[in-house]
């Protein structure tokens, strides 16, 4: 990992993101990472809070287009995330909180995928099915907690 991190840090992407004095380099990449986070986690939050009953009149199936926004946000953050990592790879690769963040994102994505299966099948949500309803509640809560934890870990990278 150390060798890979050193190589990445010395690569053209790493050098440009870190050393370019342009406002379009590090500051803009970091800003896009925050915009992507807002889109990805924000769209997730809309679906999760809807599943938790915050908007009972909102049909869950109508929220399916939000997954396109999530993908766009995720793609933005995967790209900008690699660039930010490359800018200071040896330091970040040595930070335990970085691996915690990646793990949390992985778990959050799995939860999001599991919720999506529910959402796309939810044309006729059988409210009588109590065990299914409680499973949905648990998944939505887990999703909110995991995404908030991923944000927390990301922010802590600047402080730990």
């Amino acid at each position, binding site marked *: 990992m150390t060798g890979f991190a050193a190589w990445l840090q010395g690569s053209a992407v790493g050098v440009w993101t870190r050393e370019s004095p342009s406002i379009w380099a590090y500051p803009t990449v970091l800003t896009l990472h925050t*915009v992507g*986070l*807002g889109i990805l986690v924000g769209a997730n939050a809309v679906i999760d809070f809807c599943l938790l009953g*915050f*908007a009972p009149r909102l*049909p869950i199936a109508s929220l399916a287009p939000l997954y396109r926004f999530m993908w766009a946000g995720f793609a933005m953050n995967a790209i900008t995330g690699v660039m930010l990592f490359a800018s200071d790879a040896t330091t970040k690769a040595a930070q335990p909180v970085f691996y915690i963040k990646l793990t949390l994102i992985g778990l959050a994505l799995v939860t999001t995928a599991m919720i999506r299966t529910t959402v796309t099948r939810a044309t006729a949500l059988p409210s009588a099915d109590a065990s299914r309803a409680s499973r949905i509640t648990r998944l939505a809560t887990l999703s909110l907690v995991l995404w908030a934890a991923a944000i927390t870990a990301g922010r802590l990278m600047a402080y730990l």
Partner: protein
Amino acid sequence: MDGFVAWLESTTLSRAIVESRVIWPTCEIIHFIGLTLVIGIAGFFDLRLMGFMKRVPVSAARDLMPLAIAGFLLNLTTGMTFFIGKPHQYVGNVAWWAKMFFLLLAGLNAMFFETTVGARTLNLGAGDDTPRAAKIVGAVSLVSWLGVLYWGRMLPYVGSAF
């Protein structure tokens, strides 16, 4: 302004914020969680107002708005904490004034919506198109909130550095 900044920095509260190793990072975490609520929930409503996701009933989408307001209140509180802690870092920073401009724009736009076209969108159900004025309000809101986020993130890189 300099006098106000100097007075604010001399207060016990300001010193406590700066001297604590926990307050600033904790507020940063909350500020980012709050921003996802504002961008996610308000942005979702804005997109529906603009005419996207027509299967979503406008009135039902509005039911989520208290969560966006909750996110905003989290960010107002944590944002004020940052300001009280290090006011000199903000008042001389053009990015902060740009952020405040977009915040004001978002607020005035929301007030305009609530007092005028808002009422005409309340009864819109799934598949209904929104009035042109609502589309403009939605677009202005989305641009404003992204402007607030953009200039907030630019604070350390534009004007006076952190």
